[in-house]
């Protein structure tokens, strides 16, 4: 049986000297606490199903540092690796895949230039093109009647608007329509982050996760908001996601991956042990 995937996300900060650290890591027993490669190895040993590296450095002139991090990780960690953050061209994608990443996650660039989805899927194959969709709830359901309006848990109505530049800019684009479009253009997977939930520890944004999981044929990775084990469980049961991405709960050592999998397994969710 195909298992649900647990994916730790490493937000990588690159510096001028070629160094790199992962944001928010507080492992006390790790030799180099913030080293992305060490952390990737650790998560692999714990049974992570995939890894995501997100380059959160504001300027992407330090791309060579990221390439080095990818290469060193891919030399020692033999599970799928997705790399995202500031990817803006075919040559970027090629460089990252050649360094040993299996997939790239494209976000803002795909919104600004959707053709990059088709082009990159044609060249590299859909399986390595992940489209990251960041969205925010928009409660204005009257003037935007062509939007996919949903009822939220509290009974309110909202549609989900695509946001870019790390959530700083609203686009007016309906997230459900956008997700359908990226699938048609060749995306092999969608990484969905609700900016209303990101960093809140309130759990995944279930309405949009469920809607996309039911609408799309490609797998959905739910992201943003995980604070406890039940949240992950609900992402799979209520949200119907194929994979769950989390950062803080793993980095801060609140939960280990085996703990997550044991919990899910006991609740009847198929996971890889």
């Amino acid at each position, binding site marked *: *049986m*195909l*298992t*649900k*995937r647990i994916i730790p996300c490493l937000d990588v900060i690159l510096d001028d000297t070629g160094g790199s650290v992962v944001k928010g890591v507080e492992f006390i027993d790790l030799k180099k606490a913030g080293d992305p490669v060490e952390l990737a190895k650790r998560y*692999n040993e714990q049974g992570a*199903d995939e890894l995501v590296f997100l380059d959160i450095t504001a300027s992407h002139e330090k791309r060579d540092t990221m390439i080095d991090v990818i290469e060193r990780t*891919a*030399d*020692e960690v*033999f*599970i*799928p690796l997705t790399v995202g953050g500031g990817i803006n061209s075919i040559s970027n994608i090629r460089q990252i*895949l*050649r*360094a*040993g990443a*299996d997939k790239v996650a494209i976000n803002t660039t795909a919104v600004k230039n959707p053709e990059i989805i088709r082009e990159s899927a044609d060249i*590299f*194959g*859909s*399986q*390595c093109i992940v489209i990251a969709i960041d969205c925010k709830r928009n409660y204005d359901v009257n003037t935007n009647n062509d939007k996919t309006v949903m009822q939220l848990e509290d009974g309110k109505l909202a549609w989900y608007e695509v946001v870019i530049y790390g959530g700083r800019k609203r686009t007016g684009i309906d997230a459900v329509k956008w997700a359908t479009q990226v699938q048609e253009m060749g995306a*092999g*997977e969608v990484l969905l982050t609700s900016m209303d939930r990101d960093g809140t520890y309130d759990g995944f944004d279930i309405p949009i996760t469920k809607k996309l999981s039911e609408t*799309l*044929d*490609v*797998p959905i990775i739910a992201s943003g908001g995980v604070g406890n084990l039940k949240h992950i469980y609900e992402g799979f049961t209520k949200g119907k996601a*194929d*994979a769950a991405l989390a950062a803080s709960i793993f980095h801060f050592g609140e939960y280990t991956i085996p703990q997550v999998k044991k919990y899910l397994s006991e609740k009847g969710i198929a996971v*890889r*042990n």
Partner: protein
Amino acid sequence: MKKITIIDYGLGNLRSVKKGLEFVGSHPKISSKPCEIINSDGLILPGVGAFSDAMNNIQSLRSTINDFIDMGRPVLGICLGQQLIMTCSEEGGDIEGLNIIPGSVRKFPCNNLKVPHMGWNSIKIIHDHPLFRGIENGEYLYFVHSYYVKTDIKHSLASCDYGLDFSASVISEKGNVIGTQFHPEKSGDAGLKILKNFVDMC
């Protein structure tokens, strides 16, 4: 030292396969040169991408690969590489494959399951084989594919269930050509063990 050659026919990322083979102690070489391929102890036929592109690209090496197989040496096709060694594929029409193992490559039917079949799924080992030495029945391995291989039980080493039973691993009549639909180079420790087992067979 065993000479393993990863056949480079211009598609896909070969780095992970190479690193995986290095990790288990072999010295693989990526090559598209017939003289290097024919003088190897074992071949890896990797593959990511479209069936027809792969068949076009591999035509010039076809006779070399066939000669290598005729000498009885081991070949491992991974993912699209497994699909290429079958008779034909319906990906992109009805396209002839390398026809080393009888069987066809088919699109997953549109039911409620997501396509591509992506992630970790368990395999059922059908025939004992050195490739799966140390691998338990039901082991989870990493898959990513939209088409699956259908062959008879004789040529199927392992199966996997995704809405239907498909061949997770195939084997030729003479036993020296093997395919895996999963990616051993992306399947963690279990995958590395399978790569090691292949190197030991060479």
